[in-house]
């Protein structure tokens, strides 16, 4: 597999430069002596000034710079002065290769930065107190940092653009855009989608979609990654919280909150906690106090997904190997990430048959609640309002897909992001970290750890392997403590295999097979995998997990801002730690799962009823939308 290197499609101007490893540089030595604000130090050759400053606890303001993205160097805020150079240099893009003297806050530098912030503010329409990013806005912080107390170069007092509210996921308010182009780089480099681009020149420059179409009418996959990296409120999610409050107030309505695994790992950040603190119990309490009638754990339906998807995989393998059915498509691709689904529908519509037909856990839960739960608890499904707390912007689009009504009603009424939930909790006057913990409601009160790790890249694969391996061989997966480490971590594309030996009689057709799988996250990596599939390089693979967002759901487009790889790692760590301590860690051992297959989905996983309620179909969208 040599095609795995990630491709970058940003202009070369914005790609990281290739800096030779220091040990390959001859004659210079691995380090160079520099002077940073008068302090002499040795630094590795090739490190940028910005990196060096961060290593030395010197704060350099940045806007267009983002850890996840390649260098743009266009906001010009990170300028520093280098002795002997006529112009100031952007520290983000300047690799140190010679013994230079750097000043990070000289008169020229401070003046320039203040001017630049002043210029940005002069074109920035809107006021902070009426803005979703109030208190979490990089432009606002900069204004504070540089003591901006007036509009030095004036202030625009009427909007230049219309707000684009066409998308169910992402709202574009270009009057708040400062043209840092993080969104452009996110969409093209991290996601390989490329619906956003700068158009026009000079003062008329703006971020646009193809032909300036509404976002809903272009190939946007609703992943929301651009939102997470936008320093301002120019991009934000379509917030349904007003309608949810209305439903909560309505005594007729039975409002149910299901919470996905990853928001609980990140919600604390919205309340000032460092990343990596799980808030599961506090979140449940908050939801009850806010007036949700029930709080369910999406991990339950994640377990359900594993049962369905795992069974589907075994069925496909049986068909292919035993019945020699050539119409069966392998490897099977996971289908629980709606951003990924829209990606494949747009960019690889001819490969939809490779997708598992299983719905995402959110949607499975929706239809189960409005059928099984409604029935058991004697509530009219018409009065149930299903709210899904998700790390995700794409879930907002998913729940509105016309096919997502197999319960006879709209299976999920609202997709709510972590950020929006935090806002609602604040509105309710609750301080999340101070709340007592409480559990989930029955009849889905308990979920397995397998469901929990869905929140991180590799989690679905790990959960599926635990179940599939055990179904096939009757033994637990051959990994220490059930932890399938090869699935974990932030590598863009991970691949491994597990040998199936001493299979149960009914799975003898799998005897001796190396079950080969791939895990990819971020649709740029998905594209690499899909191109391998296209080139016939995946013929002997069986299962592929794809998550649209870098890091998986913990890095989802609805998660707290900011995001970075280190933050995502901490969130993942919180999930894995919580999981390790759970009593049940395999989906098929979840007693509530056993119960639902006994009582309700009586013909078992992938049976008739589950096909009706838990499986779906996809749309060949293609790249051209009228």
């Amino acid at each position, binding site marked *: 597999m040599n095609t795995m290197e990630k491709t970058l499609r940003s202009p070369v101007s914005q790609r990281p430069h290739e800096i030779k490893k220091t040990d390959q540089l001859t004659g210079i030595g691995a380090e160079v002596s520099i002077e940073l604000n008068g302090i002499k130090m040795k630094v590795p050759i090739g490190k940028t000034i910005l990196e060096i400053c961060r290593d030395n606890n010197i704060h350099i303001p940045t806007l267009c710079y983002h850890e996840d993205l390649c260098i743009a160097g266009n906001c*010009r805020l990170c300028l520093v002065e280098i002795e002997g150079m006529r112009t100031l240099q952007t520290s983000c*893009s300047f690799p140190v290769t010679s013994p230079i003297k750097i000043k990070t806050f000289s008169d020229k530098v401070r003046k*320039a930065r203040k001017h*630049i912030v002043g210029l940005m503010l002069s074109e920035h329409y809107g006021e902070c107190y009426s803005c979703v990013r109030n208190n979490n806005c990089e432009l606002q912080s900069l204004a504070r940092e540089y003591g901006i107390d007036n509009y030095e170069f004036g202030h625009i007092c009427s909007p230049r653009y219309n707000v684009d509210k066409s998308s169910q996921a992402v709202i574009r308010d270009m009057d708040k855009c*400062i043209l840092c182009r993080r969104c452009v780089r996110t969409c093209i480099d991290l996601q390989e989608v490329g619906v956003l681009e700068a158009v026009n020149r*000079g*003062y008329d420059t703006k971020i646009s979609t193809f032909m300036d179409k509404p976002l809903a009418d272009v190939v946007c996959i609703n992943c929301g990654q651009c939102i997470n990296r936008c320093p301002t409120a120019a991009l934000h999610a379509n917030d349904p919280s007003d309608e949810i409050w209305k439903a909560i107030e309505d005594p007729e309505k039975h409002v149910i909150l299901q919470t996905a695994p990853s928001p609980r790992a990140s919600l604390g950040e919205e309340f000032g906690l460092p990343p990596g603190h799980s808030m599961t119990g506090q979140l449940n309490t908050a939801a009850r106090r806010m007036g949700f009638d029930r709080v369910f754990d999406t991990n339950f339906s994640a377990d359900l997904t594993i049962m369905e998807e795992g069974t589907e995989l075994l069925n496909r393998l049986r068909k292919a190997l035993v019945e020699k059915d050539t119409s069966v498509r392998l490897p099977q691709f996971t289908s629980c990430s709606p951003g990924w689904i829209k990606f494949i529908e747009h960019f690889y519509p001819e490969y939809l048959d490779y997708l598992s037909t299983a719905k995402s856990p959110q949607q499975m839960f929706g239809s189960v609640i409005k059928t099984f739960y409604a029935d058991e608890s004697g509530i009219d499904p018409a009065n149930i309002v299903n709210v899904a707390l998700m790390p995700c912007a794409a879930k907002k689009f998913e729940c509105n897909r016309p096919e997502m009504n197999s319960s006879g009603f709209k299976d999920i009424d609202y997709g709510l992001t972590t950020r929006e939930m935090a806002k609602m909790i604040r509105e309710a006057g609750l301080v999340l970290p101070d709340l007592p913990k409480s559990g989930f409601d029955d009849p889905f009160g308990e979920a397995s750890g397998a469901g929990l790790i869905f929140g991180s890249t590799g989690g679905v694969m790990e959960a599926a392997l635990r179940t599939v391996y055990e179904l096939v061989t009757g033994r637990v997966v051959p990994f220490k403590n059930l932890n399938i480490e090869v699935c974990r971590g932030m590598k863009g594309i991970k691949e491994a295999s597990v040998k199936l030996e001493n299979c149960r009689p009914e799975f003898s057709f799998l005897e001796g097979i190396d079950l080969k799988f791939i895990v990819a996250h971020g649709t740029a990596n998905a594209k690499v995998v899909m191109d391998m599939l296209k080139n016939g390089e995946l013929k002997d693979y069986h299962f592929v997990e794809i998550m649209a967002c870098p890091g998986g759901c913990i890095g989802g487009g609805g998660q707290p801002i900011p995001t970075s790889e280190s933050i995502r790692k901490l969130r993942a760590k919180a999930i894995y730690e919580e999981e390790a301590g759970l009593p049940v860690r395999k989906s098929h051992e979840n007693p509530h799962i056993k119960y639902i297959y006994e009582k309700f989905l009586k013909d078992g996983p992938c049976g008739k009823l589950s096909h009706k309620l838990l499986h779906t179909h996809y749309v060949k969208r293609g790249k051209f939308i009228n």
Partner: protein
Amino acid sequence: MMTFEKIKRTGPVLFSEYENGSALKKAISIGRNEILAELKESGLKGRGGAGFPTSTKWMLTAAAKADRKFVICNADEGEPGTFKDRVLLTEYPELVLEGMIIAGYVIGAKEGIIYLRSEYSYMLEFLESKIEYMRKYGFFGKNILGEQGFDFEIKIRLGSGAYECGEETALIESLEGYRGEPRNRPPFPVNTGYLGYPTVVNNVETLASVPHIITKGGEWYKKFGTDKSTGSKLFSVSGDCKYPGVYELQWGITLRELLKIVGAENTKAVQVGGASGVCLNESQFDKKISYEETATGGSIMIFDKSRSMLEVLKNFMEFFVEESCGQCTPCRIGNVKLLEGVNMIEKNDYTLEYIDKLKELGETMKIASKCGLGQTSPNPFISILDNFKDEIFSKN
């Protein structure tokens, strides 16, 4: 701006006698190091505006290790009031082409590209026919003039009408199919240029100077001009004068001398260096045109006493607001603010305090912008407001 095709004065350097192909033959016989030595001796600096020593640029590219290298001739000539490259390309294309081949020889490039301003697309066929003509004499193709392993070809690519695409890294982005926006530097094109390969980008006039230097020697070239501005320069003279056009003059000539030659009378102001240059008043006409005093990529615009300097300034600032690529903050918004300042003065609705603030902003733009456009666009603003204070602020 009106332009005239005719060369008004040919000088002793660029337009000196020359036999086609003689430089290339000599170049191959003396070898790379000798060529670089001659170039260094000559003191030739880039004629595209920035004035970077050509020998250094070539030396750095020659030293870079890579499978491919490129020579790019920058024929985007977008600076308002500049039309000398057009004259060279139509009158002396062989000189330019030969300069490119020699560059290829020195740096080890096999591929050359002429980035031709779209307005000059009418020259395309003509230039291609020249290339074919020279090919007959063995100046293109494989093993040029019998030199084993020395292959060179030139392709011509059309620009898309943006001034900004004349900036060398924006030009390269544009060649690669992206928006014409400047790159971060470092890395420089000499290491990481077109398609990531080491690339020499030179102005038309720079390349056209090379064959003369090779045949007649750096020593000879140095005799012309001043200490730090050697050789001669093509000036595109426009505006209020009797004989606008292209002139080859030696560096070091004073503005007053130049004005006389071009038949300018009643001159109030001279903008040296195009829109991004500085504007001088009568008391400054004894300045020498040279890298030491007032440099120019070639443009000289003359304004006589009938002109309103505020109007002149407004035109320049409108140009920059329009032509900024829009990538970086100081230039994208800064130029708008400077233009607003001009409009305020025009409406007599300003405070000197704010105008001073804008001048300070201009100083920031000069050092904080990403490329030469934003770094030089405050020049006319600052120089016109300073040098024509009395006229402009007379209403107050």
